């Protein structure tokens, strides 16, 4: 079990570095996750993350990248530039969503 250290306490990550419990997500968790992954989190990242989370809360499924693009009003290239690589997978991870099913 990997622990993600925070200012006050820590949260558990699964073996692939995803947050084990979505309810434990906070901006601080997202920042620490991003840092672990070599990314400095900005308000623009958080905007995308919050949209993904709202969708996940309602549908219990992570949105596919087409939807993320539409909901955020950003093109794929803009999302890619913002998250630097693998925007769909990375944004979902930073949003505290569990690792997806399938070979990911």
């Amino acid at each position, binding site marked *: 079990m990997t622990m993600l250290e925070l200012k006050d306490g820590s949260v558990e990550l699964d*073996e*692939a570095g995803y947050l084990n419990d979505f309810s434990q997500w906070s901006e601080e968790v997202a920042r620490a996750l991003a840092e672990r992954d070599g990314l400095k989190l900005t308000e623009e990242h958080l905007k995308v993350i919050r949209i993904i989370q709202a969708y996940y809360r309602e549908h219990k*499924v*992570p949105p*596919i*990248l*087409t*939807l993320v*693009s539409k909901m955020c009003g950003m093109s*794929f290239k803009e999302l890619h530039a913002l998250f630097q690589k*693998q925007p*769909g*997978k990375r944004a979902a991870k930073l949003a505290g969503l569990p*690792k*997806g*099913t*399938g*070979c*990911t």
Partner: protein
Amino acid sequence: MSSESHVIKLDEIEKTPLRDAVMEESNWQADLNYCMSCAKCLSVCPLHGYSEWDPRRLVRMVLLGMEQQVIDSDFIYQCTVCERCSLVCPMGVKIGNLITRARSMRSRDQVPGGSQDTADLHRTKGNNMQIPTEEWIETLDWMKEEVQDDVPDLDFPIDQEGADYFITINSKLPQYYPMELQCIYKVFHAANASWTMPSIWWEGTNYAMFSGDLDTWEYTLRQQVKRVEELGCKYMAYTECGHGYYATMAGYEKFGIKPKFEVVHKVNLYAQWMREGRFKLDPSCNPQRVTLHDPCNAGRKAVLDGFPDVLDDSRYVLERVCPNFVEMWPNREYGYCCSGGGGTLISGFAKARFHYGKVKVDQIDATGADLVCTPCVNCFDAIDDLAKHYERPWKAIHLWALLANALVFDDG
């Protein structure tokens, strides 16, 4: 002797459902009794040295009636089902069949990790990531519009009856990597092929084979066959997914499915079209040093079972689109697992995976390659994980990406 040792009287072993199932499956040809305990299997097993288990022990335990311990063991889900053991076995024992059958005897709620959830979604939603049809089609169209910036006349129909090729896609692409779809579009367009994207049953993987859910394995295959036949396509172009391809070919045999179409791996199609001179290529677009990882399922396991494999054709294509192609060693039938085979990518044994994956890391390092081409979405993510975990600079890449990058379009 340890206090746990006990005597097993062979003539007192009464019920052997696992052994009987494996024997029956092979028409009593692959007799586990043939095993000579020579240990060639464990000499090539990725788990040897990590686990106290190995293929030889597995066979011994089944023969000694210790089936439940086998079925309950972590080993059967840590195994990558790469079947190097079956390749080297001098007596032709098929360990892979034994693993799959043992997994099938595990209670479904005791399957570790996410492979059974993935299989359940495939069955109930038609794809591994429960992508609704509407969003799937929207993604297809979105990517089409993007690619038309480069290739204006590129177009394709969805659910076109009578098209030659029914395309399968791994759900990971629309979910996370939709840009990769553009590569596939470009290849089929450049070949001037008659092709269609299906709106349903397009999933190009089959995790039910890995979780050991034989019923869902058969169900999902039959649903896909039904859809291809409804559209009257001549071929199902199987995507760059080794296990999905193998699960399809082996599953058709296992479940007695006789489709009215032919299954063709996309890599074999690229090579065929290249031989026919359908592509105009500029290999200088791929100047990096590129090596090849042979997927076990579409390589060795296809060879062992007599299905068309991708070993020659992936090299045929790579040599023509990458001027700096270098072989990895060992390769072809003797290639070593990516570290994520057999469902291990999501079965929850990452420690084991990174342990035996280090062998793959060393093999890749020795090539000095910048890019590791692998025509398999599962191997792609496993190699990507290895690069991150071991902080290596090389990157995984699909064959379709290298081919599409080298394609020259007259009007683009």
